[in-house]
């Protein structure tokens, strides 16, 4: 089954059960966060490093590698100086 999420306003398709990070990667996006001016995405993949955090449905600091995506999730990138 397929689901659809929104990333910075753009629709992305994923498979049911995938993490938000998994959907972003399978749609060719490697980064979705800016930290100290550089681009970051998945690093540890298991919830340890916090490199992958995004805002989900208005809630900040959600680890994309750990959160299973739900149909209709609104995901936004986060910027940290």
């Amino acid at each position, binding site marked *: 089954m397929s689901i659809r999420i929104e990333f910075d306003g753009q629709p992305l398709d994923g498979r049911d059960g995938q993490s938000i990070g998994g959907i972003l990667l399978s749609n060719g996006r490697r980064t979705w966060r800016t930290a100290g001016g550089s681009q970051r995405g998945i690093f*540890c*993949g*298991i919830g340890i490093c916090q490199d992958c955090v995004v805002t989900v449905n208005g809630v900040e600091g959600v680890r994309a590698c750990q959160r299973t995506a739900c149909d209709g999730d609104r995901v936004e990138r986060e910027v940290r100086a």
Partner: protein
Amino acid sequence: MSVRRIVVIGAGPAGLAAAASAARAGADVVIVDEGERVGGQFWRHHPALTDQRLQHQLGRFRELESALGGVRVLSSASVWRVESGAPLRVHALTGPVDGAERRAETLEADAVVLATGAHDRVLPVPGWTLPGVTSAGAVQALAKRDGVSLGARTVVAGAGPFLLPVAQSVAVLGGEVAEVVEAASIGAILRGWGARAWELTAAAGKAGELGSYVASLMKTRTPYRFGSAVTRIHGDSSVEAVTVQRIDADWRPVAGTERTVECDAVALGHGFTPRLEAAIQFGCDITPERFVRTDEQQLTTVPGVFAAGEITGIGGADAALAEGEIAGLSAAGIRASDPLLRAPVAARRRMRAFAARLATHAIRPGWTGWLDDDTIVCRCEAATKAAIAEYSAASSRGMRLATRAGLGACQGRTCGRSVEDILGAPSGIDRRPVLSSVRIGELAAHRPTHPLIEEES
């Protein structure tokens, strides 16, 4: 005696074996894990998304899962605080990962089994913050959990037999493995793994699993380099190539041996580091090698608190299973002399022979030789090698406050051990008042029975 209440923290091989055996021995068991499904790092499969070829020992997993009949399984539940005493207390938050409205719950227990496992240890290298560079475990996690691979052409580098299943995962998902780069030299490997080989035949299951990876690498003609390391990662906005260089027995890069290998992804793994926070918060003694100290029954130095799996030593899933079974039975009150313990104790002995061989791949201090002054060591706070080294004479707290190393979002989980290697001294970085990601609001709502922040000694 009344029924023993047991809480198991962590549902990987060790925790599952502990919960199943404690329940079998008549205890009242709760198992808690932050993941959505039980299985830990080894059994991280998804029913629809995981390629079957990536999942090992699934039969054993099913067996354990069906033995959980009478066990209360709390998934998507992060343990963020524990308290020793009688009763022991375990505080958990349940709900969607990092959600704003998780449910708080405190579990009381006569015995706790800690089985919180380990995560990759990744040594910094110039360029390692570029998109496309991940831990080796991330490749496994993405392959198993999401059915996703990171790049078309991957370099897998670091140390230890774990690089083998990682390379296999890349290949199964249709990617090319440009090279596997192993830090231990071929001589060290023959000495380490070849010596007293008869001890290893008893751990034949694990050896067979490794053998199947080697066979699959040979089929795809994947180059396997020994005594070498990725000492630099190149690219503008994303990984484009790596420098592979020979290293000496101390892991110091050998000048003049550099080669460039083109790739669009790099998986780095230099072994594993245990997740000790809960054990430290309980007050368990930690060995000089930085594992939880346990006795023959897997009991820690804190009454009622047992530990099993990779937090007591890195030894793979089979060692974790054996230790978990011993811990679960002992926590349930089964005596050391009971015949029930014979099989897991024998299995633990066999697997320790395997675990001892992993020392062949242990990190050597010369690795810091491949860092530039401006290489980022702490990814969260972008603290560089030079900034950290400048404070090597300061107190650990002083160094952290000045450089911010280890004070970012991951609380030094990624960089802590590397910072210590650069400073040449332990930094107390594993002592964390909060064990997992918690929101300020969730903290504010908590009524502690003991003060939250203990003074650092």
